[in-house]
């Protein structure tokens, strides 16, 4: 009971602090330091940010520089920073190259950044971070310690956790870490699913592929059932993006992000355009090849999620597989919902027209993204993309299906009322 109460208080405290930090950036010049922690499987990384004004208050000798040079900054920080093991042994801190970055903008004081790393073994944990930079002299100074990444606790940079606040008379922080990859793996799977659900371009492409499949099947005498053909196409797409995702994340392929995004837009243009072509000309093999090739492009785009993560070795492979698993699972679910909706429109005499409308919409979306990403313009497509993509897609498909059913009903009624027409 006491533990729960303490935890609640702590969580509320954290929440309060978080809420109090962000507005402070606008209200008064930033005056606090930040330590970002990144836990690797066998190392810990620290990124320290120090505000210029308070740094010079704490170390007046640094005031002789307008911008404090790296060496002087390191000389100052080193005596105030140590990480010790559970047994009290200090870890060797290695200074990581550059990133001694200086941020300056209208709302904040100049901020210096430093990076350190230290090798760890499982028996070293919990570690103790001892840091009184600036606080040793500026009594009110606070250093917020954020855990930015711990794969085992499923903590990543997009939702960091505040570990503690270093302040007057409180300059040692205990860093907990319990090795268990399950949470990390499941979170990565969810992230994979979310990546598809929140990406209108990926969703539109997937629906375009499925529509193409249904349309081709409706025009050609299919040798296999529709669901089997659909699986073939989805598998080809999955194979393509799995290969390129792995290759990109493992550093075997490296293309500028913008190029990849432009290529993704191009896949939509081609897919949308394919829906405008007479389907007798498109074979299943061709569609599978299309899916495979475009999958490669989309896979490179999926890899963007990993750019902010500092994962290595087995952790990276496991993360990759989990992320991909999430993508596959959500693709299958989407296909299971979308296919019957598209199929409902097949017997409709207006099916070709609806296919063209769908094709035009996908093509136009791709074109807008292409222009946006290539030229940096902002076009109306952003309003859709930033809202709820999945909703738009299913709303569109459902509307089509309802309309198809209504038209069939209408035609039947007409036939009943006027059998000779």
């Amino acid at each position: 009971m006491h533990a729960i109460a303490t935890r609640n208080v702590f969580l509320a405290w954290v929440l309060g602090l978080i809420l109090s930090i962000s507005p402070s950036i606008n209200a008064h010049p930033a005056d606090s330091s930040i330590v970002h922690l990144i836990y690797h499987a066998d190392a810990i990384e620290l990124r320290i940010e120090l505000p210029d004004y308070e740094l010079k208050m704490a170390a007046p000798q640094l005031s002789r520089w307008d911008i404090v040079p790296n060496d002087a900054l390191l000389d100052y920080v080193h005596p105030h920073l140590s990480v010790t093991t559970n047994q009290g042994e200090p870890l060797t801190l290695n200074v990581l190259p550059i990133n001694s970055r200086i941020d300056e903008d209208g709302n904040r004081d100049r901020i210096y950044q430093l990076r350190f790393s230290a090798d760890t073994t499982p028996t070293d944990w919990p570690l103790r971070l001892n840091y009184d930079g600036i606080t040793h002299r500026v009594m009110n100074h606070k250093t917020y310690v954020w855990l930015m990444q711990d794969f085992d606790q499923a903590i990543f940079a997009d939702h960091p956790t505040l570990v503690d606040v270093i302040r007057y008379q409180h300059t040692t922080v205990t860093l907990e870490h319990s090795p268990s990859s399950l949470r990390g793996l499941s979170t990565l799977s969810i992230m994979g699913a979310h990546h598809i659900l929140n990406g209108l371009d990926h969703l539109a492409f997937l629906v375009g592929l499925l529509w193409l499949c249904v349309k081709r099947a409706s025009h050609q005498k299919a040798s296999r059932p529709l669901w089997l053909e659909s699986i073939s196409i989805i598998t080809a797409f999955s194979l393509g993006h799995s290969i390129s995702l792995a290759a990109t994340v493992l550093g075997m392929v490296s293309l500028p992000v913008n190029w990849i995004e432009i290529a993704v837009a191009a896949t939509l243009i081609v897919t949308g355009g394919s829906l405008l072509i007479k389907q007798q000309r498109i074979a299943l093999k061709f569609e599978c090849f299309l899916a495979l090739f475009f999958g490669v492009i989309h896979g490179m785009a999926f890899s963007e999620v990993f750019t902010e993560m500092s994962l290595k070795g087995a952790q990276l492979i496991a993360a990759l597989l989990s992320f991909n698993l999430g993508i596959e699972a959500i693709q299958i679910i989407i296909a299971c919902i979308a296919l019957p909706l598209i199929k409902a429109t097949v017997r409709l005499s207006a099916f070709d027209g609806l296919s063209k409308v769908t094709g035009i919409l996908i093509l136009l979306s791709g074109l807008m993204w292409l222009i946006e990403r290539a030229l940096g313009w902002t076009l109306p497509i952003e309003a859709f993309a930033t809202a709820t993509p999945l909703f738009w897609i299913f709303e569109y498909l459902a509307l089509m299906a309802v309309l198809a059913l209504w038209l069939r009903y209408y035609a039947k009624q007409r036939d009943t009322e006027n059998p000779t027409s």
Partner: protein
Amino acid sequence: MLGRLRTTTVFALFTSGVAATLLLSGCGGGGGGSNDDSTSTTNTSTTSTTTGTGSGTSTTTSTSSSGTSTFVDNCNEAEHINNLVCKADQFLALLTNEQQTTVLGSYSDSVARTYWSNLPNATRNGIALGDLDATARDAAMAVAEQALSAAGYEDYLGILAADDYLGENGGGSQYSSDNYKIAFMGTPTTSGDWMLQIGGHHLAYNITYLAGTGYPVPNHFASEPKTAFEVNSTTYAPIQDEGDALVAMFEALDSTDLYTAFLSGESYSDVLVGPDNGSGVMPTNYPTGANRRGMLVSDLTDTQRALVIAAIEQWVRDFPDAVSDDLISTYTSDAALADTYIAWAGDWDTGIDVDSRGTYMRIDGPRLWIELVCQGGAVLSGTHFHTMYRDKTMDYGNTL
């Protein structure tokens, strides 16, 4: 016929899909929603006249951007706490159910009770003055007037005016008297436990009432500008007396005592024990043991000691005698003064210069904690004061 219908239908489908999408997109993405902390950007300019009726009822007729007030103050109880509860009830009665829910928080929620900040756009408990109609706003001001002494209420009006001043002088809409909030944590009663919170940029009144006895701490109080300024032809200087009192206290020391009071090796860019930001617990970062440094008040002359007491009163006497009398007695007893230090930090060569960023002064007693720091301007040039008045034992009535 069917062919025409088909074409029309496809077109209708296309346009309806796009229209529905755009419509929903506008609803979802463009609205932005209402932000609890974003309030009207229009500063309320209020003129009011209060008329005593001789029978204990006063009528306030005021006109503001939120309408004309028809507020009638029917409270005239002799006891401070009775009158305060009466005014609180009077205010609550003027609110809608929804507004009452916003104003009334839970007394048992320690996290919520410690939720206050010095910042202009932080999340706070309660309802903003700008969200009240003119009548309810006057009733809210009547609650504040009752909870504070005459000097305290004058300071309160000054802090509100200071924010309007900042808003009009380049600060923008985040600075406005409309943004100040009032909240009750627990239901106001004369015999039970509850808390009154009034807060906004540079202001946090956290007054806990335990069976009718008020503990007005922690109290954050600041103002930019720190000296006199004018708004709507009225001159305000809400924090000048406090600053002057502390400066006078140190100026009365000879150089030896001033050096004893100097916190060498310590610098301050803000108060040490600042906003609790929803910690849910009492602060633990007061200096203790050898870290409690400065000039001991019991070692001062009577004249110097009187200046210390005068400085203490600048904060504590912002609250009515019913609240402050006992506290003043406690803070200034011989036993307390024998354990009370006055201390300052900044630049020894410059001395105590309130125009210098980083100048810091404090009174540190066994219970009392008052500190003032000179900060750089957030909107205006020059320095401004941030201050804290705390009671190490009785913050939040010691009931977290």
